[in-house]
């Protein structure tokens, strides 16, 4: 009893104090008696694998879910939230992974949406000025008059933050805020978070990226399978390896064993490709590269420099305005996607939910997406249900997809499992060429390792792999060669893993210029 009282007292000093939170979902115990504290003015990271219960816990705090058991104290007073509105009234605001903004409306309109003021007359200029001032104060640069659809993902995130700040939130929950951001935008975000804590705001930072947690947070709480494995340890007192262990419960090998092997024939050759992006602007300005059998070729670059457009052009999802795509000696430029699929091109798309899967269809329907016409799943004009089920069950076992049955809709799967479904589909038939877009983005440490191992297996089996990633470490450890793309042009090719050169090229310097500089400094 004494112990409990002490803890309660300690609890009351904190900004937020959650004690013994239990939350059940059908068949899952998402939170199992979790304690969590947030002190004023700190960045507190909540670390854990996919499905560890981080988002559930924070959704409880933000009033989206109601806990089955346990208490929440905010500033020492017990609270019961029936809706996010109650939570916001108590000063708690959550920025979700998927933004909740109206694309056709302006920043100001989005921020004012649902507020009691203004009542009748929408005095936009007044509120625009107010929001601009608030944005400047916290270093959240965004034009209050801009429409949401015109903004980049990073800017939209700032609008979400402004929305919460405008509502007077003192406690901000950020659900995996960096998952959607480019490296430059991540730096901006971290600066913003710092300036907010300086002004007395407290921040909960949900993540499973160790280096980000190490970089930004003051304290960290680690969850594993719905339980706390380490509560509120100071970041100075821990290390990356230790956190990784706490998170996955085993030693994570950060080194990857890659076999030496000679690459074979050229499988993919991209010659002087030009293409436009969705807004009709030039996204690719003469890209030339090649990938040979049995090698992983990395494509490095800051997000939005034409990587997605290049993958789309190679897989036939986007028209090239100029240039050629040759796969295994055959020109397939501007042919329908089916032609590439027949030639053995597999594609792990960047957007898993909107491109890679059909959310309301079952796991079975999702894994047969590219071979439903082939024997034995395709039988004449019919789909052989038994063969499809058998195939899906095999893949479920082989790729360790965690799902009750293969008839479950994939929308109910976690991010990591969804990626496994896509990988299972794309890899299981041994592709000639594999285009992997950000294959490990948003996955937890254990899953990342699994995906990387699968990519290496493809390389050993003789597939040509084009790996597009924003994680330089991943590119360096997996790739045989790395191209760097900048504003739709290839800046150069690196085979020795020189990180400095890659960094320079990513900011728009050409290989030739780097060499010239080097020569100059030698003189």
């Amino acid at each position, binding site marked *: 009893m004494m112990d409990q009282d002490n803890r*309660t007292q300690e609890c009351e000093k904190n900004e937020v104090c959650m*004690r013994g939170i239990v939350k059940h*979902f*059908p*068949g899952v115990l998402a939170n199992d008696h979790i304690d969590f504290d947030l002190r004023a003015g700190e960045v507190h990271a909540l670390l854990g694998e996919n499905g560890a219960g981080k988002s559930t816990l924070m959704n409880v705090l933000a009033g989206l879910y*109601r*806990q*089955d*058991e*346990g*208490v*929440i104290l905010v500033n020492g007073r*017990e609270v*019961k939230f*029936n809706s996010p509105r109650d939570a916001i009234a108590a000063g708690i605001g959550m920025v979700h992974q998927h933004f909740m903004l109206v694309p056709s409306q302006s920043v100001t309109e989005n921020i004012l949406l649902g507020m009691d003021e203004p009542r009748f007359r929408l005095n936009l200029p007044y509120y625009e000025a107010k929001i601009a001032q608030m944005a400047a104060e916290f270093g959240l640069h965004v034009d209050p008059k801009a429409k949401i659809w015109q903004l980049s993902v990073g800017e939209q995130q700032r609008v979400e933050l402004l929305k919460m700040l405008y509502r007077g939130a003192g406690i901000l929950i950020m659900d995996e805020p960096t998952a959607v951001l480019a490296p430059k935008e991540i730096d901006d975000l971290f600066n913003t978070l710092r300036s907010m804590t300086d002004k007395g705001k407290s921040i909960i930072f949900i993540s499973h990226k160790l280096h980000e947690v190490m970089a930004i947070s003051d304290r960290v709480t680690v969850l594993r399978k719905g339980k706390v494995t380490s509560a509120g340890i100071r970041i100075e007192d821990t290390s990356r390896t230790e956190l990784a262990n706490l998170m996955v419960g085993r030693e994570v090998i950060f080194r990857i064993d890659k076999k030496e092997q000679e690459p074979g024939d050229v499988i993919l050759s991209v010659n002087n490709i030009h293409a436009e992006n969705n807004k009709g602007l030039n996204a690719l300005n003469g890209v030339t590269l090649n990938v040979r059998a049995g090698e992983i070729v990395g494509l490095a670059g800051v997000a939005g420099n034409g990587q997605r457009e290049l993958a789309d052009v190679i*897989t*036939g*999802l986007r028209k090239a305005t100029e240039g050629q795509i040759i796969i295994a000696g055959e020109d397939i430029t501007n042919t*329908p*996607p*089916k032609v*590439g*699929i027949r030639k053995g091109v597999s*594609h792990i*798309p960047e957007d898993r939910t*909107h*491109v*890679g*899967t*059909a*959310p*309301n*269809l079952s796991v079975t*329907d999702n894994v*047969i*997406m*590219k071979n*439903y*016409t082939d024997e034995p799943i*395709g039988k004449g*004009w*019919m*789909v052989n*249900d038994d063969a499809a089920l058998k195939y899906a069950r095999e893949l479920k076992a082989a790729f360790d997809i965690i799902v*009750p*049955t293969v*008839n*479950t*809709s994939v929308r*109910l799967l976690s991010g990591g499992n969804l990626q496994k479904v896509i990988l299972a589909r794309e890899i299981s038939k041994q592709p000639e060429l594999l285009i992997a877009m950000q294959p490990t983005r948003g996955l937890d440490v254990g899953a990342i390792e699994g995906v990387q191992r699968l990519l290496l297996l493809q390389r050993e089996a003789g597939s040509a792999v084009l790996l597009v990633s924003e994680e330089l470490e991943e590119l360096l450890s997996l790739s045989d060669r790395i191209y760097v793309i900048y504003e739709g042009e290839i800046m150069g090719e690196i085979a020795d893993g020189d990180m400095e050169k890659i960094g320079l090229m990513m900011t728009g310097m050409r290989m030739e210029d780097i060499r010239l500089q080097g020569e100059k400094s030698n003189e």
Partner: protein
Amino acid sequence: MSEAKMNLSPKKKFPYKLKIEPRLNNPSGWFSSMLSFLAVVLALLVGAGIIAMAGGEPWRAYAHIARSSFGSVGVFSDTMVKAIPLMLTGLACTIAFRMRLWNIGAEGQFFIGAWGASLVILAPILPEETPKWIFISVMAIVGMAMGAIYGFVPGFLKAKFNVNEIISTLMLNYIAVEWNNYFIYAKWSEGGFQMTKVFPKNAWLPRLADYAKEIPQFRGLTMHFGLVFAIIAAVVVWLILYKSQWGYEIRLIGDNPKAAEYAGIPIARNIILVMSLSGALAGLAGMSEITGVVHRLQGHISPGYGFTAIIIAWLAKLNPFAVLLVSVLFGALILAGREIQPSGVPTMIQGVIMVFLIASDFFMRYRIYFARRKESKS
């Protein structure tokens, strides 16, 4: 500390609480049918309350409705006559809706199908003394072809120019009605009346009454061969949607067109094909209505079958066989509507049933149960 649980009434500690959870798996088929049945029963009870409040006698009213649509073989046969066009147009909507193509134009495709069938006789394509089965097959084919063309047009516009199919199919409905009017007023008018001449007997769909000589019980029964068309169509639609590769493509496009494109499925071609098939089914409905019931082309051949079909497709949850059953129910309500017209009761019941059926969908998506409250520890 122990009062953290959310209670509706904190004082009274009822040992059970109601829990609502989203379902992780789709409930089984019988559950869905059971639910729809219960919804209809509840709707009838509510309807009874309303009739009673209006000073009517609900049980007598219901008995009358039941008698006038299911009471005897004769009226049941009439109910089926109303249900047949609903079945075919309902199936037309079902296949389009599966791909999230909102074909609101079944009504227009119905009229054009009827017109196409009339063309065979009035153009004339076939002489009047053509044998019955040739007449019927040619009329069915031409009716379906015309309906298919009428579905193809909005399909093509959507596939090529991304024209919203809701607007285009809706507008095409008016054109179809006026097109028919032009022919029955001007071209094929019989003696200035707004109708064509009666079709030759060879071109009539067989009715049960036609066999009254052999089987006396069939005397006076109006149910016609269109029911066979509807059942065959339901089987075909079911095979396409649930067994075929094409059906898989349709479902995939319906759920996520981007994923379908990524999987190499030609979307534009499928839009055109599905719209054409949808139009063909609605066209067949028109053909079966004029050759099975009215035996001539005239105005007002449809009390809005093509629009009711939209609701039927939804209530049947896009299941082709359920479409047949729901159509019978709506056929009964249309028929009963003529019997108790002044009171507007059947229309009211239609509305209440619809509300209940749509609301019952909640139970398909959520699980509701009583759970024992956990004893709170202090």
